[in-house]
């Protein structure tokens, strides 16, 4: 409806973003084009750069622009405590709350036989490696309270039994509620009140 093929194509792409629909995508594109000097050009450059460099951290699975991410290399974070999350969005939510000072491990999903996701499809083998190489003493499982999330938590806890202390975020993470949707205070409370599995 914008009559121009290139503009239509951009609107179609934008409409695929989470939180945007066809109407809001149209408004966003119009805005970008009007401000092409201040917005569209820098956005295009930045997107191109990220598209070339973005990658998953080989160590923890976080997203960054290097083979190993900042969180894994930063010297001011505590070694020895690993917080295990399902998804990068969960890691970001934990970081937003800025209560956790240790390192992370992103699984990249949850175990689900019905969806064909097994332990080797997640970063579970890498987690087991890191326990040894990084001399980890506590693993905090910050997994969602869904059946699949809890299956994954039990699975990992079972594997790590007698090797490290395994704790889990305390109540406060509601059933089916995802970490990403929790406010910072709730995350802080859940972390402070974590319990042994």
């Amino acid at each position, binding site marked *: 409806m914008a009559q121009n093929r290139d503009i239509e194509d951009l609107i179609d792409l934008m409409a695929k973003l989470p939180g945007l629909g066809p109407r809001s995508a149209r408004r966003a594109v119009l805005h970008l084009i009007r401000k092409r000097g201040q917005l569209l050009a820098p956005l295009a450059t930045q997107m191109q750069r990220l598209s070339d460099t973005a990658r998953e951290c080989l160590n923890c699975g976080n997203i960054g622009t290097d083979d190993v991410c900042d969180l894994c290399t930063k010297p001011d974070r505590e070694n020895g405590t690993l917080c295990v999350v399902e998804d990068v969005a969960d890691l970001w939510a934990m970081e937003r709350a800025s209560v956790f000072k240790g390192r992370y491990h992103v699984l990249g999903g949850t*175990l*689900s*036989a*019905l969806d064909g996701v*097994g*332990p080797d499809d997640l970063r579970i083998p890498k987690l087991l490696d890191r326990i040894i190489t990084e001399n980890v003493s506590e693993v905090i499982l910050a997994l969602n309270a869904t*059946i*699949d999330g*809890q*299956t*994954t*938590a*039990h*699975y990992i806890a*079972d*594997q790590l039994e007698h090797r490290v202390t395994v704790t889990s975020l305390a109540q406060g993470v509601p*059933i089916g509620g995802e970490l990403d949707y929790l406010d910072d205070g709730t995350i802080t409370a859940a972390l402070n009140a974590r319990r042994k599995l």
Partner: protein
Amino acid sequence: MLYLNELTLSHFRSHKFSRLHLDGRPVAIYGANGSGKTNILEAVSLFSPGRGMRRASASDMTRRPEALGWKITGTLTRGHRSYAIDIKSENGAARRVDLDEKPIAQTALAALSQVIWLVPNMDRLWTEGAENRRRFLDRMALSFDASHAEASLAYEKAMRERNRLLKDQVRDPHWYRALERQMAQSGCQIHAARLHTLAQITAAQNNADTAFPAADLALDQGQGDMPDTIDDFITALADSRGQDLAAGRTLIGPHRSDMLGRYAAKDIDAKDCSTGEQKALLVSMILANARALAHQTQTPPMILLDEVSAHLDAGRRADLYDEICALGAQAWLTGTGPELFHELGSRAQYISVSDQGGISEITQHEAAAQ
């Protein structure tokens, strides 16, 4: 008191626009086969969590051929309060519920209104497979405790995951144990809720002054007993892995339970009773469920009795009506003709339904037209 004092069906099944103005008395609905009586009861059943008494999808309920979606509006009176409840589905989308114009979760209805029912396809309950008896028991359990639904869903999901591992011949013991722990937690909760339900129904039957025969009820596991504790259940599931792998599915647990019923006074299995006796046992259980709920919540539930008089003689019918009226429940009854409700007299309100070229038309009456 719990009752609907206004109910409107828009584009719901055979109803294009039907509005009822009601008080708390039982509602007797009569009309020819296919006129749209059961559809009204189905609409009322949606005032409790779940898929309603036909277990139909939202898109099945939309009036055809238009298929525009549907809406049920009700004013529900509970005690001294009144609630405006909208239940609707747009364009075949999932059902949504609004309370006083604000969206609420379907499960939140459990706190506001309890609806229980007896429908004609339950007539075969005692002679058919265990699944429907389990479902009947679970509906009763759910009426006492809404968290029964959550436990059932959790168990179901964990078991389906485990069954997939079994089918795929996966051997990873950690994965099995992770699922089995969750099955054990929810499974023990389900089992306890069912036992508690049977105890409540039994007590309510025994304490009532009723003309209907008490059913002796028990849970049966087939081979082996249901483990008593979560730890025992975890062990039992682990021990069962070998035979489950051979079968390709989980062979122990509450999904294998059956509800056994006996005609207590005659000491005869329900399945060996006459059709009328089998129905009478079910009526006895539904009334007991209602009495137990009335005792638990100080409010009798709405009771949907679809074609219930079909297997009851005039004497039994009169007894049923007396007991419903004594409960003070807004029962919704259907039948093909007004004569079936003769014994209710002025204790009920009457609605006739007829099919007018594919559209259900309703008329309210002061008394049953004879």
